[in-house]
């Protein structure tokens, strides 16, 4: 069971997040202050941390900086009510691994915590495989079984990201941030349109689907059963 340390001063927000995490099968530790949080983080045991940016008497980033200084590498998701353009960049530079702006949908939070826990290890593999799907990173080609899939560069990037995070829920915001590297929320259903294209190429009508749309939440790539 994965252990998550939550450092959040607002009791109500904390209890909602904890309830959801417990429902999803995580063990949760809660610290309401920065000092307490830092102690709990130092004692180890957490597989991932959720740290609020604004804590009474302490900046959440200070905690992360202190931990990184002590070579504690636990992945951290930073929560912030500050939506500043560079705030996210700063949060990531200070050692945060992901950044989520309040208010957020709870599924977004869970998806990001899962992603932190299952971060793909840096591998030297040049061929990635999920079931019958195979990506050649050097040749930039994709095949499903014996069928070659003709992909545009942007579609290859998207598929590569999904293959590296197979079986994980990927929200639209995550895809937009990670694949397109943009920090703003587009007004149109851009991600859906791009995903629709990719899906038609990866999943032919006669094949069992691999890309699944989780209604209202995001997308998952899975090997066919």
């Amino acid at each position: 069971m994965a252990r998550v340390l939550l450092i959040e001063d607002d009791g109500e927000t904390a209890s909602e997040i904890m309830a959801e995490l417990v429902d999803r099968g995580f063990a949760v530790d809660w610290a309401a202050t920065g000092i307490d949080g830092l102690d709990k983080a130092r004692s180890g045991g957490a597989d991932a941390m959720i740290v609020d940016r604004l804590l009474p008497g302490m900046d959440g980033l200070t905690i992360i900086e202190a931990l990184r200084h002590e070579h504690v590498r636990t992945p951290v998701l930073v929560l912030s009510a500050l939506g500043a353009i560079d705030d996210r960049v700063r949060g990531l530079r200070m050692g945060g691994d992901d950044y989520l702006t309040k208010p957020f949908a709870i599924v977004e939070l869970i998806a990001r915590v899962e992603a932190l826990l299952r971060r793909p290890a840096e591998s030297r593999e040049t061929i990635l495989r999920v079931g019958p799907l195979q990506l050649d990173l050097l040749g930039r080609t994709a095949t499903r079984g014996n069928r070659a899939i003709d992909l545009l560069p942007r579609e290859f990037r998207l598929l590569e990201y999904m293959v590296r995070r197979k079986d994980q829920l990927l929200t639209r915001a995550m895809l937009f941030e990670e694949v397109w590297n943009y920090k703003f929320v587009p007004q149109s259903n851009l991600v859906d349109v791009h995903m629709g294209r990719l899906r038609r190429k990866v999943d032919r009508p006669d094949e069992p689907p691999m890309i699944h749309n989780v209604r209202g939440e995001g997308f998952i790539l899975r090997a066919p059963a």
Partner: protein
Amino acid sequence: MRLPEFTRTTTFRWALVVSGAFALCILLMFGFVFWRAAAYMTDRVDRGITEEANLVVADPPERRLDAIEDRLRQDPRRVKLEGLFGPDGRRIAGNLESPPRGLVADAAPQSVSAVRVDALGRERQTARAVARRMPTGNLLVVARNVDEVSEIAGIVTDALVLGLIPALALGLAAGAFLSRRAQTRIDEVNRKVRRIVAGDLRERLPTMGIDDPFDRLAASVNGMLDEIEALVQSIAGVGDDIAHDLRTPLTRVRVGLERARQNAHTLDDLRAAVDQAIVGLDQSLALVTALLRIAEIEQSRRLAGFSEVALADVVREVGDLYEPIAEDKRIAFKVATDTNTTVRGDRDLLFEAIANLVDNAVKFTPQGGRIELAVVGSGSESVVRVGDSGPGISAAEHDLVLRRFYRSDKSRGSPGLGLGLCLVTAIVKLHGFQLTIRPGPGFVAEIACQRAYA
């Protein structure tokens, strides 16, 4: 005693200092003139009396007395003084009562006080005199009245008084006038500024319509006030708009939840109502987020994050991002990048601005329409142009669409916050570029970017 207000101004103090210096210069000049004139006259008199004394000494003794009397007779101005005195000091001839006191015989001429006696009586005069001791032991004194010199001194002093006092008075008057004038304007400006501080933003500083520094200063302050007034007004307007645009979805959420609580019979009914409520809340939150973001960009003064951005690359990426969605709508989407110019800016923000324009174009262009996204270089600037074959907007709406929350009547039916163009404006302004809405057909927006120079 309290001096009047204007005497305490810098202008007046300077006038005082300058007048003082002026008076001192005049005094020195007149003093010099007097000194030179007096020296010249004294010198002439000295030479005259020395020569005369020499003549008398050279005369044969028997003619000496007559010669003295003759010369004294030929002196209508009564300036000549001469006297021949015996060794015992007794007067033998001339009009001097006695040898002047302190006069040294056979020396250079010197100033003395002498007493003149003649038919008109006895008179003490200031004179230059020279004395000669004769071989007989008699003492010859030749002198000349120099009251003229003090008369000249009098004239000079009079001239000084007549010239200097009016000049000084004039200087001080000019100082007082200038000082009072400046004081009046400053008082007026102070009054106006106090009214502006008190909240009357329509007040402006007075200008005289002449090109003096004071007017120029007032003009720039007025320009600043124009900007502040416009900002304050736009903030006030935005406040109203925010209240309205937030209330609408929140009211819908509230009503929906209330009705569901009373009327829902199944869990599914309740779920549907909650889903509706979440959509409404998300809409309100998106609005707040967008507003904060615009405010943040507008207030951002840190240009340190700017770097060289290749415009064509950004435009190609936007094209890449929006091409599928345009294709789905069967809109012909043409991307033209024939220049490879760079500008100084924030890459992400420029991307967002261009993406917003394209987003709008895709939203408002009907099926089968056409969108053109192009970057063209002309001279020192590059222009990013987004044009579509949609309904466009009327000329009257050109300025309005750049405002927060303005939504053209034609766009009422489609989703959106009415903040997209406002965000574009904020980003463009941050970069010092210009956003122009061109007359149609369709909607054409241009961002004119100044090229980066190394």
